[in-house]
């Protein structure tokens, strides 16, 4: 039943498509953009494809042929085109096309416009907001609905009334008129905005003047589609390079000056964040499950390909940690394997190699350098061909592992016949890590596994934006260090901290000079000679608790700022680490 319905719908869509195309032809002919017409038509074809794809298996084949042909013809000639025809690229055809970048995304634009308008009186407007917001879904819905209506009309005019094309032309002319008007006013409002950003005060006016065009748009939404082509013409010359300079040329970027402090909810800490997010029911769980099942069917194939000398890299949006974890528990139970969390802030190649030598190969010796260790491992694995090791690396492209040397070493490991590597990458530019030599070491097979799962674990290590740095990690290490010190040494450190806290608001504070420090310590009976103090400071410096610098030939001692800020934030930690004597 469902499929039948869909089929019907599809047919309807097909008609719609032709009509649309015709309409466009006329519009564009009027504007005299022969080339644009072509491009536009292609875009339409592509949207068509997206809609069609799921229903027809056979046609998918044909499309594939088409795509392939494109790929082949175009490869190396036109970047834009070839990228368009990349793997999953039906929707990705706009990745590098700038023609209609900003203005076609009406909804986002609208949202941001609306978001920008209530400028000064945020707290008051918050309640009003929903009212304005309602416009958005209406807009998008109204848009598609009226679009359909319009097109249906078109069909009728084409099939039923056998109206001569002249009439249709006339039908369109006013439309595109109104369209250009609305576009004009919209860009007007944009200008307004630019000005308004400098004069934050007179917001009310802006609200008014922006609301009107946006409502205008809702009405004239269906035709907005035609506008990008005009924009396109204007922007035609702007290619990739110009686009870049456009974005980076003006040294001043105009953005509003509002800060999070004015909002009540600014930064949340990790725990609250988790609690809050747990209340959100995940959407599309059925579809996500289906996606995941699809990937799980590949497990055996992955195993096969790993065993045959390939290595596997997973890419695509969404955390792949759960997927790899399932892979591990289903097929790797009976073999030696190492799981490496690349997102862990303390990870290093050294620790990876250590866990291989110490835990996998039960070697207790030490190595002079990482390269020595690598050589040793390589020899070990070459000697004993019965030895097999699976490496699972989450986030091979993480901050800690993306360095050239780390990648070289991991690549060399993975090129061994009896070490099998399956890894995931997330960063947009991750493939840039690998030059040809490294790629041939890795011998990758790429698998796209878009999961849409949240990167909970990966972003949980207190290094992400907007999340309050609770500072539990540095504080706990500080406690560790302090515990190992003598009471006098602790006192010295406390003196320094106190002094720095007192001077926290002093912008010209450059640190505590050594002489003053010595004097204070002597008065508190903490040291009896400056040698003792120097020795103690060296120890602090080795633990990276303090740093020193010379200002006007005087040694200044500064406690590491992050410790101070942690201590300030966390009163309890302050008490517990420094309060007791």
């Amino acid at each position, binding site marked *: 039943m469902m499929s039948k319905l869909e089929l019907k719908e599809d047919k309807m869509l097909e008609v719609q498509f032709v009509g649309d195309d015709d309409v466009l032809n006329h519009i564009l002919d009027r504007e005299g953009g022969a080339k644009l017409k072509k491009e536009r038509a292609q*875009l339409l074809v592509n949207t068509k494809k997206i809609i069609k794809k799921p229903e027809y298996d056979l046609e998918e084949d044909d499309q594939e042929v088409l795509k392939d042909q494109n790929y082949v013809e175009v490869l190396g000639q036109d970047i834009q085109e070839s990228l368009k025809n990349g793997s999953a690229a039906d929707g990705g055809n706009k990745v590098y096309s700038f023609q209609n970048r900003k203005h076609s995304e009406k909804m986002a634009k609208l949202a941001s416009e609306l978001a920008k308008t209530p400028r000064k009186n945020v707290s008051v407007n918050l309640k009003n907001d929903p009212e304005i917001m309602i416009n958005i879904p209406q807009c998008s819905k109204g848009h598609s609905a009226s679009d359909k209506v319009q097109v249906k009309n078109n069909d009728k005019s084409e099939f039923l009334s056998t109206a001569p094309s002249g009439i249709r032309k006339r039908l369109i002319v006013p439309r595109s008129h109104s369209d250009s008007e609305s576009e004009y006013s919209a860009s007007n409002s944009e200008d307004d905005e630019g000005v308004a950003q400098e004069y934050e005060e007179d917001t009310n006016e802006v609200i008014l003047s922006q609301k009107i065009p946006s409502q205008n748009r809702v009405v004239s939404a269906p035709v907005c589609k035609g506008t990008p082509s005009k924009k396109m013409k204007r922007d035609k010359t702007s290619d990739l390079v110009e686009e870049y300079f456009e974005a980076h040329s003006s040294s001043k970027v105009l953005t509003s000056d509002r800060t999070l402090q004015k909002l009540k909810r600014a930064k949340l800490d990790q725990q609250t964040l988790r609690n809050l997010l747990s209340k959100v029911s995940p959407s599309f769980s059925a579809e996500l499950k289906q996606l995941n099942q699809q990937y799980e069917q590949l497990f055996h194939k992955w195993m096969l390909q790993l065993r045959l000398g390939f290595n596997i890299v997973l890419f*695509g949006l969404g955390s792949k940690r759960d997927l790899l974890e399932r892979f591990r528990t289903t097929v790797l139970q009976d073999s030696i394997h190492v799981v490496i969390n690349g997102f862990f802030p303390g990870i290093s190649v050294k620790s990876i190699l250590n866990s291989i030598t110490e835990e996998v190969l039960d070697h207790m010796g030490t190595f002079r350098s990482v390269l020595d260790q690598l050589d040793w491992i390589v020899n070990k694995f070459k000697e004993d061909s019965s030895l097999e090791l699976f490496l699972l690396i989450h986030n091979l492209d993480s901050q800690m592992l993306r360095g050239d040397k780390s990648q070289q070493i991991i690549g060399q490991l993975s090129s061994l016949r009896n070490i099998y590597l399956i890894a995931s990458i997330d960063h947009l530019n991750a493939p840039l890590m690998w030059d040809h030599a490294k790629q041939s070491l890795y011998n990758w097979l790429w698998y796209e596994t878009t999961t849409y799962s949240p990167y909970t674990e990966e972003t949980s290590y207190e290094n*992400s934006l907007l999340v309050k740095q609770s500072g539990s990690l540095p504080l706990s290490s500080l406690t560790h260090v302090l515990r190992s010190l003598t009471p006098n040494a602790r006192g010295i450190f406390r003196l320094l901290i106190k002094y720095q806290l007192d001077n926290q608001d002093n912008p010209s504070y450059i640190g505590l000079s050594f002489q003053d420090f010595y004097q204070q310590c002597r008065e508190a009976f903490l040291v009896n000679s400056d040698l003792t103090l120097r020795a103690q400071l060296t120890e602090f410096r080795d633990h990276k608790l303090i740093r020193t610098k010379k200002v006007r030939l005087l040694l200044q001692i500064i406690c590491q700022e992050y410790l101070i800020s942690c201590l300030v934030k966390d009163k309890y930690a302050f008490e517990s680490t420094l309060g007791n004597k």
Partner: protein
Amino acid sequence: MATSSVSKGCFVFKPNFKKRKISVPVEDYFNKGKNESEDSKLRFETYQLIWQQMKSETEQLQEELNKNLFNSLIEFLQQSYSGFHKNSRDWGCQIKLREIPTAALILGVNVTDHDLTFRSLTEALQNNVTPYVVSLQAKDCPDMKHFLQKLVSKLMNCCVDEESKEESIQVTQKKTFCSMDSLSSWYMSVTQKTDPKLPRKKRTSSSQWQSPPVVLILKDLESFTTKVLQDFIIISSQHLHEFPLILIFGIATSPIIIHRLLPHAVSSLLCIELFQSLSCKEHLTTVLDKLLLTTQFPFKLSEKVLQILTNIFLYHDFSIQNFIKGLQLSLLEHFYSQPLSVLCCNLSEAKRRINFLSENQCENIRRLPSFRRHVEKQASEKQVALLTNERFLKIRELYCTCLEKNIWDSEEYASALQLLRMLAKDELMTILQKCFKVFKSSSEKQLGSTAKRIEEFLAQFQSLDEAKEEEDTSGLQSKGLQKTDLYHLQKSLLEMKELRRTSKKQTRFEALREKVVNFIDSLVREYLLPPETQPLHEVMYFSAAHTLRAHLNAAPRIALHTALNNPYYYLKNEALKSEEGCIPNVAPDICIAYKLHLECSRLINLVDWSEAFATVVTAAEKMDANSITSEERNEIIHARFIRAVSELELLGFIKPTKQKTDHVARLTWGGC
């Protein structure tokens, strides 16, 4: 055991020993895949067999192709080395003695293939010239100290192989102090020590020298630092009389790089000779010839797949290794996904296997689209027979395999034909003769008659030749023009005139040539049909170009963009269907945040962003009016925003910035 912790990032899992013993054979994974069918085992074996054959074939090929290069290299080494020992007082020789013989090996940009070449080069040198062959890479030698250390340790390992282990341990301890002096003294001691032993050793060829030279290969000359190279060359040229060194530079770009790296004072210490390796394009052609355009391997690539592989080769890396990798993958995919690939083996074996085909397999054959098309073309009563009678099926199968032989080069056919038409007579004759030979050797029954025809043509040409001679003496210029390759060009220039003149004398040659071309045309049309039209081509031809590209030449950026921009592509939910460029407000949070951030320029105000996000998300939510307070709802939305932003940061779209408070910097520009 959990795999997340705040204190460590590596987790080792070792199953207990008993379990580990039973390691699963590779075939099992092959079988466990989704296409379970009875003879997957056989299929896997066939895969392994064919792959092994292909691999050894390519290796052999590489060896053959490198043979010339290596031979000339070895000759050069021997010659330059003999200079060391002539010991003549000739002035020229004295000068030469100060120069380090150097071979500059230009290998092309396909860096990934170099390793293999160097490996076989080392082997060849060790067998023919000297046991002391050391190769160094730039990354091992950031400075002179490391350079020498590495050189010494590798050099000592070269000769240590037969000696006791103790010595090798000593070597590693010696590492700390090494200079050119110690190196040359070591060399003296080694050559003297091993001198009496030499006859016992297997390297008979190297024994002809009392002291074999030391060959140092610098694999990637371009990446060496200038200073290290200069110093090393100057120092070693001083020691050349006691430490006979020969350098080999591996160069990926062009020989100019030597002069760019080394000033004249240094490069004058070298006696450089250039060697050019085979171009990788030629290499590819031979590989294609030997692996695909041959009857030796039943496995074939369809046009699209081949094009993808060659495109990756031509536009991305020029790497033969990667090409072979692609070939391996397509082979694997073919056997893995196509149950009928069990018949993809040599002819006699296929015949045998056909006899054992099961009901299931026959059903599979019937399901093939190519077979269905074939059936549809037959008369109706035959259709029934085809679909029911398995015996009949098998005959068709055979027919298919027979035909496979002639179907290779249909793609370039049109252009080839055009070329034929332009060919001069003598060239045409040689080609025809070649064809004749090919057809003769193939000894197919069907092709016998064609061979005969070609023979006839040849005879006609022969007779024409005699007639032609007379014509030539009459000295007609237009005739001469026609014979040259420029004919085509001339024709376009002097179109009308030429036509008038030659139309009179439309020689017999022209007529005959036309005839031959037409004949070949018909021949090709008859036999060289594109494989897709053949019944059962699926058995031999791997055509899943799409999967191949997805795994070899993936586009992660595009995947990311698609997922963010058009979630419907992945999550087939009607609610997500939208116009292009728009995104429904029910889309996943990260998509909405992404879409909003596209509207901003270099810097993004977090407050604005979060409010825009809240606007969109609240609109999407269908609230159970009283279940939660609006304050709490806002908090949740804020949390969702934070998550989306941190995820975008992880993906590399934004990063925190200190340019302005509460702003983030966009890392992409334009539509992406």
